[in-house]
């Protein structure tokens, strides 16, 4: 019976309901404490913690083998206990200095009442509450001060008529009344006189705070577990910063005690008192403006309590809001288009280190025993056995046999990862939820994580040395959640814009483009190609000797699929329509507008019609088809891709010559002062704008010439036309003219006085003196053109470097402000305290990730419904 109750109790889950904040009173500090610290010594000669020292084992244990004297538990079990020291003289708490100051200023020095007459207090409440809403407690105190200084009786207590003296704060911690220093003892007696009702006017809550608690008479000593010492290789002990600081405090405190008891002269006591004040101040905050920070012997400042909590590396953001995890792995990624989109290739070495916990039942006992027999060094084996009482046993050559003997239902075997296990895969920066998706594991040879290049997009990954993280969820709950909510196919549609985030990229687009643009293959080649892609049903292939690309592509589409859309490029007949009828690509070419990420409705429609699982399969096949076709066909970009025929080159030269002349003309007109000025602009600005417009226009003209004359069948053109990489602009820049280099929307003007480079004449406003690059990359740039290019290049690098932290901060603020908005069961959007932000999410209650580009596609429904 007794045993039954025990096992029951083991499974009681406790939940923290709420946390109350308050200021610790001296009584509380003493009550909390399990030891009174009296000596600054840490260890005795044997290296054992001294009783009453700062490392007293009543404050918790940090050495293996010792037991805590307070709770009796061992290292890692004992969470530590507070201690306290009795201060020889009271000391001001640095954090509360400003509050103490306003309390002193706003209350009577004799009777401790607030300096506002009774009849006026009632009227002030509303005013004060408003001040608090705007400026928090500081605002409220400032408002009280204003009210008092607005009274006739500024210098007189309205209750006891005592004259009030001016109180100033001599930073950091000394209060001065009429040029006379007030000791913390005096301050404390003043604060004691303030009644609980008056405290409330200041916004302080009686029961949680008393003003006099802000002057310390006892100091709480944090547990040793909070400031563990580390043992160096030499066997020396290195103490934590806090311990150092506390040591100083205790030492000075002891000396102060001794001096007081010995009746030392007032000056010595005062000095020691100030020193104690300094140490306690820096114990709380080592960054007080007026004090020199306390330092190590090496000169580096101590990290005391405030620094421990604050900022990104502080306790809150580093350890509480963000946590470390086990069962994870990180390595370089590389592509593998032959694995499925929702798979991740895991190296065998990793698979043998990370484990999956499997609970032993009667039915899988034998199965799991086989894993255990293989042990930890043979794949697939097992690394650990967990007993029902929670004890974890490592599988080693010695323990193996005993453990196999021991295992029984109720045990948990931690076996190696195997194909099909669920893992979370993540790449930083994790900017959106698709940055962490769950994949099925595929154990592969090698030492890198493998992922299908189609999922690079949501992760924003490439393979130039990127690393990614892998996490293995360990509980059934977590595994299910990862499988149901986080798998790649569930994340196909971006919640940002309601279109597919996963699509074909680069070669996959080029390949499909070339295939559907009019490729013809022999039947055996076509079958071979489809086979490679994973299509096994060739009944859709027409029975001809030569099969065209569209027919091959159609084999991947479902038989009942209908679609109408547009492509960015034109097919051989010059149309840009894409028509799919009953699963056959009848017309049009496949390019980025239909296959790419975030664009077009082809992928979105497949997803809508056939569901996520089928969509991801089809997408994977399309992707493979493109890559495989391209690999068999060969694809390259060559220097000759940007070759232009002679007439085109002449044309471009004419255009640029004319532009230069026009610019010179404009400059002449400007110098004659005959330039027609735009309203609201100066003549110089007008000239600049006109020149910029002119040069941009002629660059675009060269672009058109290039587009007309370039060979459409070269690799570069194919990439540009299909949208897989680069655009017409890049082609024009290579073949004809790079164009105007602009900085901040203007032509380049910085450099020397009146000119951009010493190469030019002063005041030269002509096109090439102000950053117009008239040569193309292939033809080669002149030295000054190259330099202008470098200027804008550097500028854009700086832009990126400056933007990243800015947008990161904006993102952090947004996320912090909005993280607890959620849709309630009544479909309103509310924040954490239940305040309604929106009555219907987005006014119509549509989830973007379930919509089609943010809307319900009525056109599609109408065409589907008969």
């Amino acid at each position, binding site marked *: 019976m007794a045993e039954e109750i025990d096992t029951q109790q083991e499974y009681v889950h406790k939940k923290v309901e709420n946390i109350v904040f308050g200021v610790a009173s001296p009584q509380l500090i003493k009550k909390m404490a399990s030891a009174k610290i009296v000596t600054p010594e840490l260890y005795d000669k044997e290296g054992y913690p001294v009783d009453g020292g700062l490392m007293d084992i009543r404050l918790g244990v940090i050495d293996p083998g010792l037991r805590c004297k307070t709770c009796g538990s061992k290292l890692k079990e004992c969470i530590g206990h507070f201690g306290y020291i009795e201060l020889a003289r009271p000391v001001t708490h640095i954090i509360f200095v400003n509050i103490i100051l306003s309390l002193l200023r706003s209350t009577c020095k004799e009777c401790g009442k607030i300096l506002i007459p009774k009849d006026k207090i009632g009227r002030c409440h509303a005013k004060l509450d408003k001040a608090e809403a705007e400026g928090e407690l500081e605002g409220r105190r400032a408002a009280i001060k204003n009210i008092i200084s607005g009274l006739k009786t500024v210098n007189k207590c309205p209750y006891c008529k005592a004259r009030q003296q001016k109180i100033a704060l001599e930073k950091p911690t000394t209060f001065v009344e009429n040029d006379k220093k007030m000791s913390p003892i005096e301050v404390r007696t003043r604060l004691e006189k303030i009644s609980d009702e008056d405290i409330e006017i200041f916004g302080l809550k009686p029961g949680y705070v008393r003003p006099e608690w802000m002057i310390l008479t006892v100091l709480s000593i944090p547990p040793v577990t909070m400031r563990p010492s580390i043992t160096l290789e030499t066997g020396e002990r290195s103490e934590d910063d806090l311990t150092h600081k506390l040591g100083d405090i205790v030492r000075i405190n002891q000396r102060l005690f001794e001096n007081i008891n010995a009746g030392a002269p007032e000056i010595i006591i005062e000095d020691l008192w100030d020193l104690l004040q300094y140490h306690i101040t820096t114990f709380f905050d080592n960054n007080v403006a007026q004090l020199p920070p306390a330092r190590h012997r090496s000169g580096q400042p101590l990290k005391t309590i405030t620094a421990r909590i604050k900022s990104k590396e502080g306790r*809150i953001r580093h350890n509480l809001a963000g946590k470390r995890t086990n069962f994870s792995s990180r390595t370089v990624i590389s592509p593998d288009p032959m694995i499925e989109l929702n798979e991740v290739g895991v190296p065998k070495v990793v698979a043998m280190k990370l484990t999956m916990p499997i609970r032993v039942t009667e039915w899988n006992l034998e199965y799991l025993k086989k894993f255990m027999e293989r042990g930890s060094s043979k794949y697939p084996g097992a690394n650990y056995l967990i007993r029902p009482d929670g004890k974890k046993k490592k599988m080693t050559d010695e323990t193996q046999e005993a453990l196999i003997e021991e295992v029984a239902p109720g045990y948990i075997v931690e076996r190696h990862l195997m194909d099909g296990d669920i893992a979370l895969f993540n790449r930083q920066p994790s900017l959106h939820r698709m940055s962490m998706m769950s994949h099925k594991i595929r154990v592969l040879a090698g030492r890198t994580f493998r992922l299908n290049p189609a999922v690079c997009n949501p992760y924003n990954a490439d393979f130039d040395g990127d690393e990614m993280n892998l996490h293995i969820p360990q509980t059934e709950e977590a595994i299910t959640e990862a499988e149901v909510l986080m798998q790649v196919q569930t994340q196909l549609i971006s919640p940002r814009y309601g279109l597919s985030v996963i699509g074909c990229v680069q070669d996959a687009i080029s390949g499909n483009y070339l295939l559907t643009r009019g490729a013809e293959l022999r039947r055996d080649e076509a079958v071979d190609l489809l086979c490679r892609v994973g299509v096994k049903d060739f009944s859709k292939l027409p029975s001809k000797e030569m099969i065209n690309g569209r027919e091959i592509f159609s084999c991947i589409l479902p038989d009942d699929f209908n679609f109408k859309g547009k492509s960015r490029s034109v097919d051989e007949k010059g149309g840009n329509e894409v028509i799919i009828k009953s699963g056959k690509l009848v017309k049009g070419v496949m390019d980025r507008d239909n296959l790419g990420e975030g664009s077009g409705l082809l992928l979105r429609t497949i997803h809508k019609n056939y569901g996520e699982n089928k969509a991801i399969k089809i997408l994977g096949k399309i992707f493979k088809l493109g890559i495989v076709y391209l690999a068999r066909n060969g694809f390259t970009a060559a220097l000759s891709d940007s070759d232009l025929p002679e007439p085109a080159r002449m044309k471009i030269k004419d255009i640029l010559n004319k532009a230069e002349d026009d610019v010179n003309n404009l400059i002449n007109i400007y110098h004659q002062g005959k330039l027609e000025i735009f309203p*609201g602009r100066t003549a110089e600005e007008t000239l600049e704008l006109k020149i910029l417009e002119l040069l941009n226009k002629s660059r675009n003209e060269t672009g058109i010439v290039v587009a007309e004359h370039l060979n459409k069948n070269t690799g570069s053109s194919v990439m540009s036309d299909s949208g897989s990489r680069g655009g017409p602009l890049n082609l024009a820049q290579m073949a004809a003219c790079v164009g105007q280099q602009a900085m901040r929307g203007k032509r380049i003007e910085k450099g020397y006085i009146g000119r951009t480079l010493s190469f030019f004449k002063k005041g030269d406003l002509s096109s090439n003196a102000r950053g117009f690059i008239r040569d193309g990359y292939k033809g080669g740039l002149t030295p000054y053109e190259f330099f202008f290019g470098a200027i804008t290049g550097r500028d854009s690098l700086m832009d990126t470097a400056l933007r990243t932290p800015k947008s990161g901060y904006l993102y952090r603020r947004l996320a912090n402000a909005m993280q607890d908005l*959620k849709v*309630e069961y009544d*479909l309103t959007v509310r924040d954490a305290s239940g305040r309604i932000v929106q009555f219907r999410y987005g006014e119509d209650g549509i*989830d973007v990730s379930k919509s089609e580009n943010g809307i319900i596609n009525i056109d599609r429904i109408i065409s589907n419904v008969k």
Partner: protein
Amino acid sequence: MTKEYNKYKGRLPSNVLEEVREKTKGMPEGRVNNILKEVCSEYNKARVEPGESVGLVGAESIGEPGTQMTLNTFHFAGVAEMNVTVGLPRIIEILDGRKKIKTPMMEIFLNKPWSNGKDIRHLALSIKETTMKEIMTDLAVNIVESKIELRLDNAAMKDVGVTPGNVTEALGKQLRGVSIKKKDDLIVIKMKSKEGSVGDVSKVKEKIKDVFVRGVKGITQVLPVKRNDEFIIIAAGSNLRDVLPLKEVDETRTITNDVFETAEVLGVEAARQIIINEVNKVIDTQGLNVDLRHIMLVADTMSFSGDVKGITRYGIVSEKASVLARASFETPIKHIVNAALVGEVDNLNSVVENVMLNQPVPVGTGLPGLVTKVK
């Protein structure tokens, strides 16, 4: 026909229903019915589920493309238009809830007949703020007689449509203790008090430069443009309160890009719409695709309390009920100390606090609880 549509009122959002009505015009009743049924089922499938963490998704959707935006502060939209803050700085400016924005702008729509282009240039200039320094050429101080002579620039005056009469009137109204006389194209300003010191005269001289002659205060630049068959005035600088009452101005469409001014003059709802429009404008010009719902949610979090609050530690975040949530954002020490002073209780209702305590968070799958009967 209307009967069919009415049946779905309340079951479909009105804009969706309206679109269906528009697109199914003239179709047979049976088909319309089927379409409506299908639309309704698709709508129900596309609805948000309770517990969905829409706030975080919204923040992600705006924060993620932030890295792709340009930092260029200014650009010239078109040939002769004015400088506008664009890109990331503009988004930051709006979401910060800044009281003073970098480039305030107004789009002033006009009533007929002005919207057809009648007197458009003249009208635009009459809205622009004109001060003395723009319409005078010479300002001479005569210390001995303690008087100031200023010469008017007739060409400039004609440009903005100001008569010398206007000028003397404006000077008389805005300068104290002086007498104003007009002599040809000279205006003589004499100090009334005899023993006026030299300092006084030069003080008046400085004041004269800034005397406001005509137009609307704060409008520094005007530009009439034609947009969709009508003329509108784009103005740099913003003063909604003074522009709206003008009889030429269509007060139902005239807007400013200043969120705070809109909130003051037209109320929070209008300010919310301005936030949405302005953020959307920036995102659109950058060629990014972000659903309007996310922007709406941000605008709503900024404005649902009744006035516009920025997404900063002084704005929205300071309103949070949870001490730990506030502390995890910025200035943790301040929040913890203040919480201790008032004996604040953190009820652990939102996300971060529960993360801190290793407890399930109350959004998404953490929201429902399972109750099992134990025998």
